[in-house]
Structure formats: structure tokens, C-alpha cells
């Protein structure tokens, strides 16, 4: 009897799966656990307005890309999904995304960096809703007034550093290109240049240009002066900061809840100019995308344009996720929030994280270069040169 019950259950499951595919006239949205509750509210509003059913399916953020690649072409994918802009290259190259049409006036209501992040060539492939980036987070008890230059910050940091006592002035977790990019970019370092079509050119690699090397030299100097130390990884840097033993670090919004718990009086600010140049941090942008395999592209576009791009939904999403809104009217509501404003100030000089899949080969080589610099095993110029050449070799580009 048990077997029969199992079989019946199996049949029901198959029937259930068949109904969660993108069906003409009904919207299916993939969202992760933090965004599902907000989406359910919006979905109910849409259904009330138009009598069109909207189903929200909870899919893990990390699984979404992979599942879309198999479910989309099989006709079982969603109409709309919520993801990160740096998926764009992979998803577009796999033929999974549909361009989105937004009126120009609506585009102007978004943070330009966020819109730029979802542009592929001239076409928009997503509607941004939140940005995420690092900034300088400092302990106001140790650094009451933030200097206007990075050099000034280093002088203060050196004064605060006492390895015997276990106190440090400024730490950047290593080897970690994401947190170190600001040093390279201040002098004009970049990862990929842009080609004539406005798309990143994977063979134009700027990790060994003068600016990138200058940034690596700054890191090397920090190590030589004992400010930066080998072995300072994420848990160590944040741990020291929460104990009040670290003056400043480069970190993201995810480090703040524990700083609040630890009772640290912190400030969030843009990283000061390095050698007169403005540091650019990576900006990650989250947003709504439409599947190329959707049977409801026009409907999905209407849903995104009229129901998601509102101040209320954007603020609701902010309340759930805590990430700064990319929608300016929503961001303007948060002027009283110093943390958000600090990260926004840092993002204002930011660059969208490169969104071509070739980025995968950059992290490894670049991290290796940083490790060699921090361990003092190779001079900064050679380390960056090697990393750039390794990337060129992996990507099949001509090496210089």
C-alpha cells in the first residue's frame, strides 16, 4: 500500500512541477528568501489590479543562475528573476535574458552607476533596485577626524599600529582584490577596458598599467611600514575592529551589524584620495531581469515598470535586505541614515563590477599577485605584470 501512496505522491509532484513553468497569461517570479515576502505583497497588488495571477517561487540566490540555464530552455523557467548584475555576461551569452524597455524619464530616476551595471552595449537587461559596495569604515574613538587624503590616513594608522599590543591603524583584508581595487583604481588602474560596442574587452587588461602598479606599491609600502600584515583575512580584520583594536578598515555593509552589537562608534565614508586620485570601488547591483524564455515578456515588462519601480516597493526591499536603494526617490528618504549615505558616497565614485564571465579568471591571478606582495616575496611591479600576463594567457590574448 505504501508503494501506491508513494506513486500517487510522485504523480502529484510531476503535476505540480508542470504547473510552475512559465505559462502564458500568468507570471512566475524567482526570488530568494529575503525578497520573497516583498514580492508576495506586490504580486497581490498586481493580481488585484489586472486579475492576472502572479506566483512567487523561492529559489536560493546561489542556485538561480544554474537553474535558469536548465529550466529556461526546457520551458520551465520563470518570467522574472531577481539577481545580481554581474550574472549578466554569463546569462546573456547563454541566451537566457530578454532586454527590458523602460521610459527614459524612469531611467533618470536611478543611480547612473546602477543603470550602467545593467547595460550590455546599448540595451538594458535589468531594473536595478539595490547597490552594494565597500567604503572606509573607521572607529571614531581612534580616528576622531578623518583626514582628507589616504597619505594622511596612513600617518595616523602608523601611529596607531603597535603589533606588540595587538592594535592596528588600517587593515585591508588580504589577499583580496575586491577590497584592494580602490588602491589600484585611484591612479587609473582598471580590469577590462571598453570596446567600440560599449562592451568590456576581455583582452584589454589594465592590471599592469601605471595606476595599478602604483596601487600595488602603496600596498607594498603599507606592509614595509608594518601597517598592513600578512595573514589579515576577513575574520581577523573584522574581529580586531569589533574589539576596538583597529582604527579603520575597508569593508561592506555586511560588517556593520556586528559593529553595532560590539558597541563601536564607527563612521562610514568614501576612501580618501590616494596620490591625488579618487579611489573607485566595485559596485555590485541587484535587480530584476526578464527571462528570454518567458511567454509573457510584455506582461513581465509591465509588472516591472509599473509595480516594482515605486518608492514604496523600493523602500520595502530596503527594509528587508538593508542594501542601499538604487532608486533615487527611495534613497532620498534615507538622508538621515549616515551608514547608507557613507556607502552611497563611496559608490558615487564606483565602477560596476565587471560583468563578463572572463572575470572568473581575473580573481585567481590577481589574488596570487596580492599574496606575493603582502608576503614580500615579489616586488609589486613584477607581481602585477605576472598577474596580467597570466590572465592574458588563460583568456588566449596576446601577451606583451
Amino acid at each position, binding site marked *: 500500500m505504501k508503494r*501506491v501512496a508513494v*506513486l500517487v505522491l510522485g504523480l502529484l509532484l510531476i503535476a505540480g512541477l508542470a504547473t510552475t513553468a512559465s505559462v502564458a497569461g500568468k507570471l512566475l517570479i524567482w526570488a530568494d528568501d529575503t525578497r520573497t515576502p516583498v514580492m508576495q505583497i506586490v504580486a497581490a497588488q498586481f493580481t488585484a489590479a489586472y486579475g492576472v495571477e502572479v506566483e512567487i517561487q523561492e529559489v536560493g540566490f546561489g542556485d538561480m543562475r544554474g537553474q535558469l540555464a536548465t529550466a529556461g530552455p526546457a520551458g520551465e523557467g520563470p518570467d522574472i528573476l531577481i539577481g545580481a548584475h554581474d550574472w549578466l*555576461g554569463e546569462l546573456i551569452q547563454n*541566451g537566457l535574458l530578454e532586454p527590458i524597455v523602460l521610459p527614459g524619464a524612469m531611467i533618470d530616476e536611478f543611480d547612473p552607476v546602477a543603470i550602467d551595471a545593467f547595460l550590455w552595449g546599448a540595451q538594458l537587461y535589468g531594473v536595478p533596485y539595490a547597490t552594494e559596495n565597500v567604503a572606509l569604515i573607521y572607529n571614531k574613538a581612534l580616528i576622531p577626524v578623518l583626514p582628507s587624503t589616504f597619505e594622511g590616513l596612513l600617518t595616523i594608522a602608523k601611529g596607531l599600529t603597535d603589533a606588540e599590543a595587538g592594535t592596528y591603524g588600517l587593515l585591508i583584508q588580504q589577499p583580496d582584490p575586491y577590497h584592494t581595487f580602490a588602491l589600484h583604481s585611484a591612479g587609473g588602474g582598471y580590469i577590462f577596458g571598453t570596446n567600440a560596442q560599449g562592451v568590456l574587452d576581455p583582452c584589454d587588461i589594465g592590471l599592469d598599467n601605471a595606476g595599478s602598479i602604483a596601487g600595488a606599491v602603496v600596498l607594498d609600502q603599507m606592509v614595509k611600514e608594518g601597517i598592513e600584515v600578512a595573514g589579515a583575512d576577513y575574520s581577523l580584520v573584522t574581529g580586531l575592529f569589533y574589539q576596538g583594536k583597529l582604527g579603520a578598515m575597508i569593508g561592506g555593509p555586511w560588517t556593520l551589524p556586528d559593529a553595532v552589537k560590539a558597541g563601536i562608534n564607527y563612521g562610514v565614508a568614501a576612501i580618501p584620495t590616494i596620490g591625488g586620485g579618487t579611489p573607485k570601488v566595485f559596485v555590485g547591483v541587484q535587480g530584476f531581469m526578464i527571462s528570454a524564455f518567458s511567454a509573457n515578456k510584455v506582461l513581465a515588462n509591465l509588472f516591472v515598470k509599473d509595480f516594482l519601480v515605486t518608492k514604496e516597493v523600493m523602500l520595502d526591499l530596503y527594509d528587508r535586505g538593508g542594501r542601499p536603494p538604487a532608486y533615487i526617490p527611495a534613497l532620498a528618504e534615507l538622508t538621515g541614515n549616515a551608514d547608507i549615505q557613507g556607502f552611497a558616497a563611496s559608490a558615487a565614485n564606483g565602477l560596476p563590477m565587471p560583468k563578463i*564571465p572572463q572575470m*572568473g579568471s581575473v580573481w585567481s591571478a590577481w589574488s*596570487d599577485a596580492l599574496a606575493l606582495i603582502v608576503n614580500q616575496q615579489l616586488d609589486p611591479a613584477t607581481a602585477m605584470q605576472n598577474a596580467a600576463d597570466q590572465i592574458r*594567457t588563460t583568456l588566449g590574448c596576446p601577451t606583451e
Partner: protein
Amino acid sequence: MIPSDALRWVLKIVFLSLIAGLAVFAAISLAGLGSPVLAVLPLVGAGGLIYLFLSPRAYPLRWLAPGVLFLVVMVIYPIGYTFMASTTNVGTGHMLSKTQAVHQLLERTYSPPDAARYAFDAFEDPAGDLALVLTGPSGRFLYAGGEASRMLDPDERAADDDGDGRFDRVLATYRRLDFREVVQRLAVLQTLRIDLEGEPVGLRSLPDFTVLRPLYAYDGAAATMTDLEKGKVYADKEGIFTAEDGEEIFPGYRRSVGLGNYLRLFTSPAIVGPFFTVFGWTFVFAGLTVLLNFSLGLALAMLLNDPFLRLRHVYRVLAVLPYAVPAFVTILVWRGMLNLNFGVVNQILVALFGAGARVAWLESAMGARAALLLVNLWLGFPYMMIIALGALQSIDVSLYEAARVDGARWGQQFRRITLPLLLMPLAPLLIGSFAFNFNNFTLVWLLTEGRPPIIGAQTPAGATDVLITYTYRLAFEGARGNQLGLAASISVLIFLIIATISAINFRLTGTLEELSKNV
């Protein structure tokens, strides 16, 4: 209650008919999805199952069938699939089949810069047929029954009943839909392509219909894709339509590359570069790990097997503890303890011997390799100890008594009795341990990530990278996203290496059994 034979028979029939029904349902669905080959499988499977349960001759097979089925599904099919994948270029940008990719490209449209836009009103008759009135710069059109025609002013086919300037009915029976009703029919409206004065017009986004010309034309004979907007021709190049100037059209598609992935493994400078360093270290790592772990495990086992040792049961439990903690937790704890400036190991060394005694555990090549072996020793010796303890207890004590009577010393007893009798049952396990550590991704990735980097290597590679971590970097962190085809070819190679080791394992086991007959 034991069911009677009749009830049992009825249950069996119900069960089998459900299976048959399910198989037919699955076959029809699969055939509907366009995979007739796959559709045959459930039918064959169900047929086989019914034969198994109804034929008395197949009775013994009922017990074998599930095992064979799982062997096929879990082992043989994945190996076959991996090999198939290894002969293709599947990966980021090459996920779809060529048919799917071409189909998707042919659906793409473009609007010329000066394209006309048409505001629309939608109408529906009681049968559910849709009609449209499209108003554009060149006039007003009525679309119904699959055809569009220019409207006169006034046009007898349309009626404005309330005089608000918009038509309320067309063709007598079609009533105008309000916006809410239009939204509900958008899925149908987006599929319409209306021929208006020789130009295809469709709905791409609200509120207007626009001219939507097909962007691509596919020439099946020449296998080229032509961009009709730019007039550019793209030909197949490694599974992606590429123009002469190198511009590519995404998505690309899967295609066979024969043994190309294997050739790349051995010829591409991006892969061969540090390959042999990594390959060598993999063998050294796996071999030394087995040697060290077994030596320590055996030594402890002999100590704890000594009946004169007090509290030996307590020690046994303590020695097994590292084995009981999840490995990834242990590895991360060790990683913290081995930290150059903040780790407790170096703090102890500095306190004992001064600042010069600090060891760059994770930063220098030799330090990292030593650290890897050390942590693996911590993780692995309890297992060796447990199996050695078991094997030791199975050795007949009278052998040692006889040896003592013959005047054999401890060392001779160990070499002549303990070691051969231990190695006989343990050799397969040691070889298994070698094979496991050959592929020990977790340990290397969590402890060192393959670092420190090999200076000047052509592709990112580290002093502690083993084959599997190196290939992970190549296949998933290299080039254009995920190179699943390449990864599959490396998996096949690793499978062959492990299969060879297993074959040696079987051969050795056989040999040792032969030996034991003479003892």
C-alpha cells in the same frame, strides 16, 4: 495482517498498471518536448519491470534488478555522460543546442530608427477572437481574422456608440476591451505579427505596436547567420556565430570538438605550464599522507593494543576524536592556528624560541606543504589507528608465543609477523586512502586554496595545488566562465588514473591472498 494471495495479486496488478500508466505519461510528455529517444526509455523500463514481476523465470532477477538499475543510473550513466560532455565545448556561452540557439536568434527583431509606432485598441468577439484598431502616422488600420486593412473615415465596420471619439465595437460583434482585459491578453498580443503595408508590426512593450523586422536570417546550407540590420554575415566559429572582424552573436551553442579538449590538456600553454609541478606534488602529497598517517596510526594502535597499558580505552576514545569532528571545521580551525602573525602556533614558537622562530606556514611553499601534510595527519591518523587496531586484534596471539619460544626479538616479531599480517587486510584500504587523497579537494581548498603562488607561472597555480584544485581553477575560474567540456575531460583523466589504481588494488589484494595461504 498478512494479505491473502488474491489481495497480493490485486495489489501487484494495481502497482504495475500505475507504473505502466506513469511510463506512458512520461513517454508522451517527453515525445512532446521533442526527445523521441528519451521517450522510449520509460516504456522499456516499465516493460522490463512488468516482465520481472509477472514471469516466474525472472524471479531471481527481482533481487538483482534494483542494484543493477542503480549501478547504471548512478555510476555507468554519469561516466558515459561525462565522456560525452568531454567531447563537446559545453560551458558558458555554449549551453544551448544549435537548433535552440538558431531558433532564439531568428525570433529576435529590431525596429529601424524611424520606425512607425501604432497606438492600439483591442476588441474581442464572444468567441474569444481578437481584433485590433491600430492608429499610426500613415492612418488607421483594422486587424481581424489574421489580416489588416486600412480603415476609411468614417468606416462602417467600426462604431463609436457613446461618441467619445474611440470605437466601442468593430465588425458588429467585437467589443472594446478595457486596459485590465488587455493586460490579461498580453501573452497572446505579444505573439502577433501583423503585416501593415509590407512591414511586420508587433507589440514589444506597452503602450504601442511598432515595426519589428526580423534581425537575423539563417542560411541552413552555408550555416551562416546574417544580421539584416547591419548586413553583416556571421559564420560558425567554435560553436558561436562570428563575423570576419571577430564580432560574435550570443548565445553560442554546443558542438562536438572530438578529442579537442584532451589535446588542449596536453598542448595548450595555458594548461601545460605548471601541469607537471602540480601532477608531481599530487603524487607526493597522496603518497606521503598515506605513509605518515599509517605510521602514526599503527604506532598508536600497537601502543593502545598493549594489555599492560592502563586507561587504554580512554586513550582510544581521545585518539579517535579528531576523526569525529567534521573535517571542514577542523581545517578552518587549523588555518586560523597557522596564521603567520596571529596564529597560536607561531605565537607559541615565538614565545619559546624568539621572533626568529616564526614559520611562514601558509605563505612559503615548503611551509604550506608541511602544513598540508600536518593537518591531513591530524585528520587521518585516527582512521588508520582504528583499522590497524582491528587488524592487530585478529592476529593470533599464539604466533607471538611461538616466536618468543624461538627467541625472536621485538623488532623481528614486528617485521616477520605483525607487518605482513597487517598489510594483507590493510593494503586495499591504504590504496583506497591514496586514491581519496589524490582527489582531496576539500583539504587543499579550505587550508591553502593551492597557495602560495608559483612565481612566474603561466597560469595561476600554487605550490600546494593538487590536480583536482588546479583543474577547478582552470575549468571554473579560467577563461570565459565555466568550461564544462574541459572539466569533463579532466574528470575522465582522473577517473582513468583512479581506475588504474583500483585495478592495481585488486591485483595486489589477489596477490596478498595468495601469499597468506602460505603463511
